[in-house]
């Protein structure tokens, strides 16, 4: 009579996919469970089978091979902070992890779980997209790789098809002269982001911006790259990144946002903050490159 679900505990990713194939939409992949448990309890989602991924140690690893860093989907947020080299290679991931929810949640929550929950405010998304991350989705039939920015299709809606599991997130080594920053705004020290921006800039030998990514979180149905804002920076010498240009870039980024009003804050505030944070993120990245 009491609402519950069955608990399944596969030993390998293949087994996990087999179970998912068998039960389809009546089963969910369960990593840290910090979001899923609350949704289930509230009745927002329903399922009969919890496929507990706790034993898939291989998917917990963070590896570095030939210039590609692979973060297993089950890597906890805290493991990003404690990994011996990740913080050195991608300091922006430390910035993000340091402000992710609370220390207790970081010990359980996984990168994959944060992405698969698919809320536009997911903190791990903007920095990973800015770093050009790709995700590997696996099922019994196949594997496919997607750029992370294509992974999000709508609020709580991802590109995962029935039977697919997010296995890992991989990031190529950034070109030498790159900087990546992350800004977020919330109501208090611990809070879901009201707006967030990650920016990655790369400059060439002549100090001209050769690559730019500006990714906004919590201000659209999905984490959003503002290619319009990025284009304004391409080819610009660092020394020409003026106050005026930054305002233009920020304004263009804000124009791309489609924020909502909710109990946390108003759409107007989110739009305004997306410009403020975009400006700060870009300015900070440019400053770091100039040093």
């Amino acid at each position, binding site marked *: 009579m009491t609402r519950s679900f*069955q608990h399944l505990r596969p030993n390998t990713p293949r087994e996990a996919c087999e179970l998912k194939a068998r039960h389809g939409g009546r089963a969910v992949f369960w990593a840290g469970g910090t979001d899923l448990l609350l949704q289930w309890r509230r009745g927002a989602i329903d399922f009969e089978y919890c496929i507990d991924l706790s034993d898939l140690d291989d998917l917990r690893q963070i590896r570095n091979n030939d210039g590609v860093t692979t973060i297993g989907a089950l890597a906890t947020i805290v493991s990003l902070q404690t990994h011996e080299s990740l913080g050195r290679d991608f300091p922006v991931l430390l910035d993000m992890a340091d402000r992710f929810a609370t220390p207790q949640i970081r010990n359980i929550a996984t990168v994959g779980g944060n992405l698969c929950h698919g809320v536009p405010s997911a903190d791990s998304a903007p920095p990973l997209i800015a770093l050009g991350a790709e995700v590997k989705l696996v099922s019994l039939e196949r594997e496919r790789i997607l750029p992370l920015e294509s992974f999000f299709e709508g609020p709580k809606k991802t590109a995962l098809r029935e039977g697919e599991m997010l296995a890992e997130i991989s990031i190529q080594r950034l070109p030498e002269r790159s900087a990546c920053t992350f800004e977020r705004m919330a109501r208090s020290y611990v809070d879901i982001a009201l707006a967030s921006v990650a920016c990655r800039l790369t400059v060439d030998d002549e100090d001209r911006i050769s690559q730019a990514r500006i990714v906004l979180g919590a201000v659209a149905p999905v984490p959003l790259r503002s290619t319009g804002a990025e284009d304004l920076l391409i080819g610009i010498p660092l020394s020409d990144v003026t106050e005026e240009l930054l305002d233009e870039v920020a304004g263009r980024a804000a124009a791309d946002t489609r924020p909502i009003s909710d109990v946390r804050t108003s759409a107007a505030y989110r739009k305004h903050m997306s410009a403020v944070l975009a400006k700060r993120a870009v300015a900070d990245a440019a400053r770091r490159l100039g040093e």
Partner: protein
Amino acid sequence: MTIEVSLRVNGLDHTVEIPPHETLGQVLNGRLGLNGVRLSCEEGECGACTVLVDGEAINSCLMLAVQAGNRDILTIEGLGTPENLHPIQQAFVDEHGFQCSFCTPGFVLSSKALLEETPHPEAAEIAAELSGHICRCGTYPNIIRAVQRAAEELAEEATNE
């Protein structure tokens, strides 16, 4: 339908028959009678339910009990006794690091994890590392003092050994 879960809590082994959706907090508090594991928001916000699992502070209200199987769980009941308080507990007593004390077990356990990782944390660091705990009585400054005092105590103990 129920499953069997084995838990090692405060050094003792327990086996429980539970529905799979029961959280570690519900089992510790509700079935094992460990009332020091405090259930409050039950959504991972307040930190009152915090316990250490393999030395890591986690919200027991968010972890399925089955996921904590065969791992070492420490609750406040496993840390010191009334006759022999742990130095962290003694420091909280001496610095008045609590008022109503509903949040205290969580704060003490997270402090233990913190001090094991960072034996001499700065005050601002303590505040950040304990940001996963709400104290509605507003005792934060004395909590931070308690943790600093505990750090000194533990360092002295370590030197004396």
